[in-house]
C-alpha cells in the first residue's frame, strides 16, 4: 500500500472515529453507550440508559410529578 493510500485510509478511519456530529438522538451518548453532558430535560435515551444515570434522572424527573408524593402510614384495626 502506498503512503498516499495509507494516509487516506487513516483520514477516513479518524473521521468515522469522531462519529456523526449533530445527530440529536446520539448527542448525549458516547461510543460505549455512556452519557456525555450536558443532559437536558428533552434528552433522548433508552429506558436503561436513563434509569441508570443519576444525571439523566435529575434532569428529567421533578418532585412535582412524583406520582406518590408525601408519606403516610397506616395499620388496620387491632
Amino acid at each position, binding site marked *: 500500500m502506498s503512503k498516499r493510500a495509507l494516509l487516506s485510509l487513516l483520514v477516513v478511519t479518524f473521521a468515522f472515529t469522531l462519529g456523526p456530529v449533530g445527530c440529536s438522538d446520539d448527542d448525549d451518548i458516547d461510543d460505549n453507550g455512556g452519557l456525555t453532558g450536558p443532559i437536558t430535560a428533552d434528552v*433522548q435515551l433508552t429506558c436503561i440508559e436513563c434509569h441508570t444515570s443519576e444525571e439523566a*434522572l435529575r434532569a428529567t424527573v421533578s418532585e412535582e410529578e412524583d406520582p406518590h408524593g*408525601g408519606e403516610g*402510614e397506616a*395499620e388496620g*384495626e*387491632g
Partner: protein
Amino acid sequence: MPPVEAWAKVFITGEGGEEFLNDTEVHMRLGCIGCHGGNEGRNTKDVAHEGFDVDPSEGENNKCADLCHQPELGHYYTDSVHATQVGYKTLFTERSGTTIDGHPEFEEGFEADCSACHASCGDCHISQPNNVGGGLVNGHMINRTPDQIRNCTACHGSRVGDEYTGANDYAGFDAHYIPGRMQCVDCHTAQEMHGTPGAAPQTRYEEPNMPRCEDCHSDDLDANSYHTSHLAGNTTSLQCQVCHSQTYKSCNACHVGEGITGSSYPSFEIGRNPIPDLRSEYEYVLLRHIPIAEDTFRGWGLEDLENYEDVETWKYTSPHNIRRLGTAVDPDGDGTPSCNGCHSDSPEQDLFLRASDLEDLSADEQAANQDVIVPSGTPFSLGRTDR
C-alpha cells in the same frame, strides 16, 4: 421513613440494580417494556412513557401472576387481606349497615382514603409501598424477602414497628427483636402474606396461616405452673400476650381525609375476648383502642355510623413487644414477678378494662364495649374464673 427524592425513587443502581439488569434469563428477559409498556428505543421521556404502567404488579390481572407466578400467586388478589383490604369493608358494613361496594360516593372515598394501604406484589418485593411514597428498595431487584424497614414497617410502623424495636419510651423492644436476626417474615410467612388459597378471610384473624406463638413454643405450653394454670384447657385461659406483652399504643379519633385527629397514648387493658369464634381458646385477651369514631366517615357524607354500638372499639390485639415478663406480671419492670396485677381485689395498678375506663366515651361507644369490659374486682379468684 426517610424521604427519597423523586429521581432517586426510579434510579436503578447498586449491586441490586446490577444483578437485576444482568438477570437476562428470568426477569430482564422480559425487558423493561415487557412489564411496564411504553415505547422502545431512544426517546424523550414523554414519548418513552406513552402507555407506561408504573406498577404492572397491581390488580388481579397483574403481570407477575399472569406471566409466571399463577400457581402460587394467582389467588393473591382474592385471598390475601393485603390485597383485598376486605377487613376495612367488613367492619365498615358491620358499623354502618351499608356497603362500600355499590355506593359510588363510598367507593370514591375508599379509593382516595383507604386504598393506599393496599399492597401490590411490587409494594413488598420491589419498591417501598405507595403509601409511603414508593421508591426502588434495591435497584429494582425483585427481592424474594421484603425489606423489614422499607417494606413491612413502612406501613406497619406506628404500632407494630415501634413496639417491636422498642421505639416507644414506655416499653422495651420485643424479645424476638435482635437486629438482623428475627425478621417479620420469620413469623409472617409467604403463605400468610400471599393468602391461603380459597380461604378468602373477611378479617385478618380469619387467615388460616396467621402465626401462633405455639408454632415455635409448643414445648413451653406446660413448661411451668404459670402456663398450666393459665392456658386453654384449664380454669382460666389467657391469650399469651396477657402475661408476655408490655404496654402498647392505642389511638383515638381517625377521620377520612384528615387522619388521626385525636391522640395516641400508652395502654394495657385486659378484657373479655371479643372474637371467641376465631380464638375460642382464650377467655381473656389484651385489647387495643382503635381510632374509629361515630363520625369517622363524615368526609364521605356519612355523618354517623348507624350500628356503631354493635362492634367494640377496644379490639383484640397482638402487641409486638413480647418479654418473658410482661407488664401484667412485672408491672414495675424491675424483673420481679408479681401476681397482684390480676389476683387482687384492689390491685395497685388496675390492668382490666373497666366501665370506669369508658366514662369519657360517648354513650354509643360505651355500649359498643359492654361485652369486653371486666366487672369490678378481679375475675380471677386464684384458680377459679369468676364471671
